[in-house]
C-alpha cells in the first residue's frame, strides 16, 4: 500500500497511468548516515528502531508514497545528492527536511543545507525548511542542548554570509530520534503545515474537547502514529508520548488474539469502506459552514443513548467502529484515555475525566459520532481536491 518501490513508480509514471493523484512532495536530505532512511522506514514501514542498524546505504533517490488525509510522496536521497543531480526542480516540493546527526559539528552538513536553501528560495519562495537535529538520544541533556544551539547558530550565520536577504527565511529546527516519539512529534508538525484543512480538523477537536471536558485530544494516523491535528491546548510531550505508546499497544494487541478460525463472524462486522452519512440526520459540518457552529448546535440537542445514535439506526446490523479505553489513576478524579477509530486509518485519542467517561458515556459517544462525520466530510473534500489536481 505505502511501500511502492521507486521502480514501480517510474514504470507507472512512464505509462502515464494510475497517476491521477497529486501528491504533496517532501524532500529528505542530509549527509550520508545522518539517518534519513531510518526516519522514513521507522515512520512509514514499522521498522523497529534497533533494526535501522542493518539498513543498506541509499544509492539513488527512492520515492515513497504514503496516504493519509493528504497523499504524500517522500524522496529519500543519497548523501551525495546535489541540486543538479536531484532530477527534479525544487519548485515541485512543499517541504525540505534536512537531517543532521547531532554529533556532527563539521562544516559539511551545514554547507550542504545552505546550498539547498539558497537554490530553493530562488524557485520556490513558499517552500518549508525543516531541520531535524537527529540521533538526539545519543547525548546527555546538557550536550544535547549545546549541540542543538551550535548547529542552529551555524546555519543562521552561514545563511547571513550568503546574503542578508536569507536572514528572513523561516527555518524550523527539531530535536529527533528514532528511539523515542520525538520523531513522530517533529514529523507531525511538519505535516501540519501541509494540510489545508487543518483549521477545520482543529475546530472539530476543540468542539469535542469542550463538550466532553477533555483536556487534550488528538487525531492520529494509526499506521504512522503521526497526529494530523490536535485541539488548541498546548501539546505536552509526556502526554503525546503516552498517546503514541497507547496507540502502539492497541495496534500490537489486535493481532495477538485475532481469531484464525475459518469464517470468524467478526470478520464481516467491520466495514473498512465508509458508508455515506445517513441523510435523515442533520447535515454534518462542511466547508461552506463553520464546522464548530454546526456541531455546537447538534450537541445541544437532547442527549441520546448510544443505542439510538444516528449512525445506522435503520440498519439491522450496526456498523462497527473499533474503540478502546484505559483508565488511569491515581490522579483525581482519574483519567480515561479513549480511542475511537473514525476512518480505517484515523483515530481520535482523547484524555477524558473518568467520571465523564463512566457516567456520561452517551454524551461521549454522541460527540465521537459527530467528530467522525466531520472528519469524513473533510476527508472527502481533500480527496476530491487531490484527484482534481492530479488529472
Amino acid at each position, binding site marked *: 500500500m505505502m511501500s511502492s518501490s521507486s521502480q514501480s513508480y517510474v514504470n507507472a509514471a512512464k505509462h502515464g497511468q494510475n497517476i491521477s493523484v497529486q501528491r504533496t512532495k517532501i524532500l529528505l536530505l542530509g549527509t550520508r548516515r545522518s539517518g534519513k532512511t531510518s526516519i522514513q522506514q521507522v515512520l512509514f514501514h514499522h521498522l523497529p528502531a*534497533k533494526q535501522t542498524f542493518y539498513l543498506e546505504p541509499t544509492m539513488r533517490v527512492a520515492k515513497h508514497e504514503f496516504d493519509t488525509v493528504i497523499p504524500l510522496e517522500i524522496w529519500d536521497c543519497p548523501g551525495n545528492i546535489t541540486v543538479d543531480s536531484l532530477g527534479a526542480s525544487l519548485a515541485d516540493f512543499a517541504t525540505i527536511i534536512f537531517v543532521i546527526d547531532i554529533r556532527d559539528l563539521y562544516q559539511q552538513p551545514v554547507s550542504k543545507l545552505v546550498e539547498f536553501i539558497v537554490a530553493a528560495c530562488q524557485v520556490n519562495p513558499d517552500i518549508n525548511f525543516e531541520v531535524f537535529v537527529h540521533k538526539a538520544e545519543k547525548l546527555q541533556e546538557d550536550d544535547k542542548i549545546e549541540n542543538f544551539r551550535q548547529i542552529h547558530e551555524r546555519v543562521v550565520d552561514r545563511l547571513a554570509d550568503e546574503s542578508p536577504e536569507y536572514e528572513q527565511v523561516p527555518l524550523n529546527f527539531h530535536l529527533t530520534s528514532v*528511539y523515542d516519539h520525538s520523531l513522530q512529534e517533529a514529523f507531525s508538525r511538519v505535516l501540519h503545515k501541509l494540510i489545508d484543512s487543518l483549521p477545520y480538523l482543529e475546530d472539530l477537536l476543540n468542539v469535542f474537547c469542550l463538550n466532553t471536558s477533555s483536556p487534550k485530544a488528538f487525531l492520529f494516523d494509526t499506521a504512522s502514529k503521526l497526529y494530523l491535528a490536535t485541539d488548541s491546548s498546548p501539546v505536552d510531550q*509526556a*502526554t503525546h*508520548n*503516552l498517546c503514541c*505508546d*497507547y496507540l502502539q*499497544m*492497541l495496534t*500490537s*494487541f*489486535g*493481532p*495477538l*488474539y*485475532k*481469531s*484464525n*478460525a475459518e469464517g*470468524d*463472524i*467478526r470478520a464481516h*462486522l*467491520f466495514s473498512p469502506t465508509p458508508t455515506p452519512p445517513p441523510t435523515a440526520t442533520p447535515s454534518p459540518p462542511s466547508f461552506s459552514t463553520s464546522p464548530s457552529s454546526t456541531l455546537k448546535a447538534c450537541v445541544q440537542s437532547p442527549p441520546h443513548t448510544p443505542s439510538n445514535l444516528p449512525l445506522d439506526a435503520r440498519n439491522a446490523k450496526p456498523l*462497527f467502529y*473499533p*474503540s*478502546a*479505553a*484505559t*483508565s*488511569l*489513576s*491515581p*490522579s483525581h478524579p*482519574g*483519567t480515561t484515555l479513549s480511542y475511537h477509530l473514525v476512518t480505517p486509518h484515523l483515530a481520535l485519542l482523547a484524555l477524558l475525566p473518568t467520571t465523564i467517561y463512566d457516567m456520561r458515556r452517551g454524551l461521549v459517544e454522541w460527540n465521537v459520532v459527530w467528530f467522525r462525520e466531520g472528519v469524513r466530510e473533510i476527508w472527502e473534500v481533500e480527496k476530491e481536491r487531490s484527484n482534481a489536481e492530479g488529472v
Partner: protein
Amino acid sequence: MGASGSGKTSMRSMIFSNNPASLTSRLGATIDVEQNHVRFLGDLILNLWDCGGQDAFMDSYLTTQRPTIFSHVGVMIYVFDVETREMNKDLEYYRDCLEGLTQFSKEANVFLLVHKMDLVREGERAIVFQRKVAELEKASGETAVKVYGTSIFDESLYKAWSSIVNTLIPNARNLSKHLRIFAEACSATEVVLFERTTFLVIATSSPADSSESFSSDPVAVHALDPKRYERTSELIKSFKQSCSRLREEFNSLELELAEFTAVLDEMTKNTYVLVVVHNPVIETAAIKMNIQMARRKFEELQGDSLVS
C-alpha cells in the same frame, strides 16, 4: 546464577520492578551476592541469589558456602550469555552448582536461560539455540532441565519467567479449572490471569498442553497466536511504564477491536484478569460485571492455596 555480565541483574529488574530496557547498562556489574526478597502474589517470596561470578570470589564462595546457597532451593536459574567466549568455564561452574543443588535440594527445578539472544542474527537464532540446548543438556547429565532462549528486549523473557514462577504456584491446575468455568460464564474464548506487579502469567483457562485439548476447546477453534501470553505481559508492562512516566498508574483496559472484545481488569488484590471474547454480541460492560462477581471466589481460591 551465572557469570558476571551474563544479564542477571538486568533481568531481575525488568521482571520485578518497572525498569525499562534502556536503563540496564547503567547498573554496575554485580560483584557481590545479592539477595533479593521479591514479593510475588503478595504472599509468596522469591529469593534471587545473584552471584557475581568474579572468578576468585566465585571459587571460594561455591566451596565454603555450599550449604547456605543450596539448601531450601525451589528453583535454580542459571544464566548463560549466548555470546560468551568462555563457555567451558561457564559449564564448569554450572556443573559445580548442579552438584550442590542435587546434594542439598533434590527436588528443585532447574531452568537454564540462554540470554542476550537478540545479539544473534534473526536467521541464525534457531540453530544457535538448538546447539546450546544440546550442549547444556549434555552438561546436565541426569538432571532434567528446561532451557529457554531469552532477551531483555523482547517477550522471550516473560515466557521463560512465567514458566519459572508457574512451578512455584502450588495450585495452578485448580486456578486453571476455575478460570475455565469463568470463561464459559463470560462466553469468552480465553481467560488469562496475571500477577499484578510483574504481569507474568499465573494461569489460563486453556489446557496446559495441547495433548489435553479437544476439538471444542475455544482456543483451539480460533487458533490463537502461540506467543500471545508473553507478548501480552510485555505490552502491558511497557504501557505501565509509559503511564508511570506521567505519574499515572495503569488501572484497567477495555477493547472493542475489529479482531476481538476484551477487558483487562483487577481480579484480586494481586492479580489481573484478561477476558478475551470473539463473540461480537458480548459487550465489555457485561464482562466487567462478571469480573466483579467473580472477585470474591478468586480471592478465596488464592487464599487457600498460598497460606502454607
